[in-house]
């Protein structure tokens, strides 16, 4: 009886999903919301990257939620792996070629990450991508040098300050305007580095926060490996 019921339910679900997918048409956007965003972003916000304007401005509250989720994940992992003894990574040094080339590449990768999140409102990318690229660069140094250390106090300060900056910008918008995360700064000339109001500030904060979080997470995990 239960199996028949399950098959019946699956059939009904499958019918409706198939119906929807067949009527949708691949690549054709049936709604009008996307077109509205594409047409009116530059006039309303002064930000040339429509994806960034949606992620940070129109749907800025969702981004705050994502940042919170990432923060909770990093905190939970830190709580699980917490140990009172200060631990050291036990992986041995990498070979000479890897060490030398990682010393060359580390500053370049960090610079690329900073570029990606500073130019989030002009070019593809943004806070999350930039932060992840920075964490990748630090990971390269972690794996090449056993003695390379990051200061956890400074990292958690950066993380907290960036989070507080994001939320306080949101509340400033609520005070000066009407809604949370309202774009209260002057929009400036589109396609310039200082334009788009609060979008660059928020993305720089998100970039610092994500970079610090992922670096801490990787350091915590790498320190648990025993030879």
């Amino acid at each position, binding site marked *: 009886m239960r199996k028949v019921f399950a098959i019946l339910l699956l059939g009904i679900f499958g019918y409706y999903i198939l119906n929807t997918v067949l009527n949708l048409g691949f690549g054709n956007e049936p709604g009008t919301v996307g077109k509205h965003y594409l047409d009116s972003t530059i006039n309303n916000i002064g930000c040339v990257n429509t*994806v960034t304007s949606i992620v940070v401005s129109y749907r800025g509250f969702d981004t705050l939620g994502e940042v919170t989720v990432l923060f909770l994940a990093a905190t939970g992992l830190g709580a699980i792996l917490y140990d009172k003894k200060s631990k050291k990574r036990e992986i041995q040094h990498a070979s000479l070629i890897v060490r030398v080339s990682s010393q060359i590449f580390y500053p370049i990768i960090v610079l690329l990450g900073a570029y*990606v999140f500073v130019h989030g409102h002009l070019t*593809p*990318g*943004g806070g*999350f*991508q930039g932060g*992840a*690229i920075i*964490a*990748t660069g630090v*990971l390269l140094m972690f794996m090449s040098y056993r003695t390379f250390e990051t200061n956890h106090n400074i990292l958690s300060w950066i993380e907290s300050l960036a989070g507080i900056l994001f939320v306080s910008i949101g509340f400033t918008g609520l005070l000066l305007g009407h809604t949370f995360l309202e774009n209260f700064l002057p929009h400036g000339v589109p396609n310039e580095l200082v334009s788009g109001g609060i979008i660059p500030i928020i993305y720089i904060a998100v970039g610092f926060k994500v970079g610090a979080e*992922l670096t801490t997470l*990787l350091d915590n*995990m*790498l320190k*648990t*490996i025993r030879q």
Partner: protein
Amino acid sequence: MIWLSILVFVLCVVLIVAALFAIIQRDLMLAVIGTGAVSVILSILFLILQAPDVALTEAAIGIALTTIIFIITLKKTTRYEE
């Protein structure tokens, strides 16, 4: 344009092969490498489909961070599937 379509087709085939390899493989370290290959191809496909934002995310998180976290986990547990 026809070359781009052929490239996309080849990439999709390699993507499916790599994903199947990651599922079937008993040696989990090789399976992790398979998921890394899936991420590389996905990132190229996102770039071809004009979604550079997603391609950047996939490149940084899917290729580097996820692979490393899986490898650390394998180091702490067992390497071979029972």
